[in-house]
């Protein structure tokens, strides 16, 4: 009798009952999550550990994860060769200013699409979705020519100007986010403001904008991150293909890391070692470090962002 009772209990413990999840299932879920989570973090761990290694540690096959001593000279060399502080400042500018322009132009466009009916609205949507799907390479060459004609090639204006007119990098997504969000604001709210004597613009600035804070946060975060990580177009429009300008970003510097490092090596007076894995990894880590810090500080906003804006409504 007693034995059966315990067997039942064990069964219930392992496979769960109607209201409780079974231990087995939970165990599998946790195991999977931890394993896959490890795979996700693995490159970063690898980066951190090998960036701290000295050359001897790298060559020593018995050392796999933990370096024999903490060695920060790799960071020093990588930072110097990347011109870290300058590149960091310029990255922030190159990612930040177009983001602000994106916020303004995309919110206005999204509001118009959500609130007003005008002829040809469906076509506008079609164009927005098409411009999302089209690879940017197709417009790249004439745009390059256009910028050089306007005289804004290799300046930050090459990013700001399209962003001001809601044609920035991945702008269609942001327009759709704003559109989705403004649709959720009750129409009665806007109408009430109209009755109280506010005009179209006033009701936009006073009613719609303040209530769209979550959308603004989401768009700002993603726009910043995406501009920060864009290397292809930054190299083409802002940095210059042959590196003619002062403008550069951390990611671009990383892309040309080997060249940068060898030029640094020639100018450095002493203490420069050859380019090795550790220095590569410290360079990589340095270029994502600002974003990592941003992510850990603002992680709640990242994680909740898409929920709150309801981008997935369509």
């Amino acid at each position, binding site marked *: 009798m007693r034995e059966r009772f315990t067997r039942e209990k064990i069964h219930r413990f392992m496979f769960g009952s109607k209201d409780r999840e079974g231990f087995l299932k939970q165990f599998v879920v946790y195991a999977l999550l931890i394993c896959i989570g490890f795979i996700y*973090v693995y*490159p970063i761990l690898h980066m951190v550990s090998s960036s701290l290694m000295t050359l001897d540690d790298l060559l020593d096959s018995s050392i796999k994860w933990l370096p024999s001593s903490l060695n920060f000279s790799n960071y020093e060399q990588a930072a110097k060769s990347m011109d870290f502080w300058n590149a960091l400042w310029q990255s922030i500018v190159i990612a930040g200013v177009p983001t602000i322009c994106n916020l303004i132009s995309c919110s206005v466009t999204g509001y118009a699409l959500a609130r007003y009916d005008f002829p040809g609205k469906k076509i506008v949507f079609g164009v927005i979705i098409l411009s999302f799907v089209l690879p*940017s390479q197709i417009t790249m060459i004439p745009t390059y020519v256009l910028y050089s004609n306007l005289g804004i090639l290799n300046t930050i204006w090459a990013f700001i100007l399209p962003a001001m007119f809601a044609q920035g990098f991945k702008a269609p997504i942001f327009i759709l986010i704003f559109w989705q969000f403004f649709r959720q604001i009750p129409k009665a709210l806007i109408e009430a403001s109209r009755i109280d004597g506010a005009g179209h613009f006033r009701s936009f600035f006073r009613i719609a904008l303040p209530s769209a804070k979550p959308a603004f946060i989401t768009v700002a975060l993603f726009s910043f991150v995406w501009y920060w990580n864009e290397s292809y177009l930054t190299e083409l429009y802002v940095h210059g293909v042959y590196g003619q300008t002062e403008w550069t970003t951390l990611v671009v510097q990383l892309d040309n890391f080997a060249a940068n490092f060898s030029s640094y090596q020639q100018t450095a007076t002493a203490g420069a070692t050859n380019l090795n894995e550790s220095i*590569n990894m410290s360079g990589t880590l340095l270029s994502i470090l600002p974003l990592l810090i941003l992510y850990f500080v603002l992680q709640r906003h990242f994680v909740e962002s898409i*929920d709150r804006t309801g981008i997935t409504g369509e």
Partner: protein
Amino acid sequence: MAETKKQTRAEKKALKERMKHLRSGKLEKRYARTGFIFMIPWFIGAAVFLAYPLGSSFWYALNNIRITPLGRIFNFVGHGNFTQILIQDPDFMVYLVDYLTSTIISVPIIVVFALLIAMMLNMKIKGKGFFRLIFFLPVIIVSGPILGMLNSQGAGSVSAIDTAALSGAIGSVLPEIIAKPISDVFSNMITTLWYSGVQILIFLSGLQKIDKSMYEAAKIDGGSGWECFWKITLPNLRSMILLNTIYTVVFISNNSENPIIGLIKDSMFSGTKEKGYGYASAMAWLYSVVVLILVGLFALLLMTRKDQYEKQVKRAMKARKRETRNKKRIERRNRRNARRIEQQRAKGRITSHTTKRDDY
């Protein structure tokens, strides 16, 4: 009955006609105008940074462009650039085929994987915040140079998973053309999985929007978790799957690690006589058309799948309609026959076995 129906239809038609001639009201017009005012930045942007480049890029693609100190010299070559790319370029076709196969293989992997992770994150587990933190990490890190750097240093694949054995096993079963991209995907497992950050976010928010009471109702009716997944979760996430698939394709095609877009840039600044802006534009056009076709294919594949319930209802409706039609036809025939028999009988030339013959 039929007469009234006809009448209402006619009325409706007339109303529609009248609506066409009806001008929209003043208020409506003003609203439309304000909408246009709000859209002005976008219209300007779309004209200058989208329509104009698109058109001139097509014009570039038909020309051979040489850059001289005096300016750009256009030389119309028609489809010359395209044929040159398709026939002579040693890299383009190879890269394109590589891109296509690897995309077709990795898109389902990424989407399914993202769905799995999202479902696990949606369960009641401890440390949810911590796991979310890890799984959204790729959203901020994924960029071309960083991935390139990680791959070149061997951090793109887990050494614990013996990829060599796996690809060997795949290679022995499948032919070379199929086996190579698959083993490529496996050997870059981490980078493939890292592409699924935003997708997890989208799936997660979709999962949270599904009504919990549906699962409860299914459970009361005796549905297992497996059935719940196929009959509740998946149908509810249909639009999200489409969105994620398209997003993944677009993301992979625009990723700067993609060799094709590197090739386009290289040929844009190549100093040789036959390459240059025109050649690169033609390449970009070819590439874009391929991407559009790919997106369209995925969209078609996922959109045509209708709801099982809707399908059944439709089929039942059709069957019922057919039945009623048949019944009516039979009734009509019977009535006709009966009338004819009546007539014949009235004329007095009928016997029981001639009822069906009417040709004299």
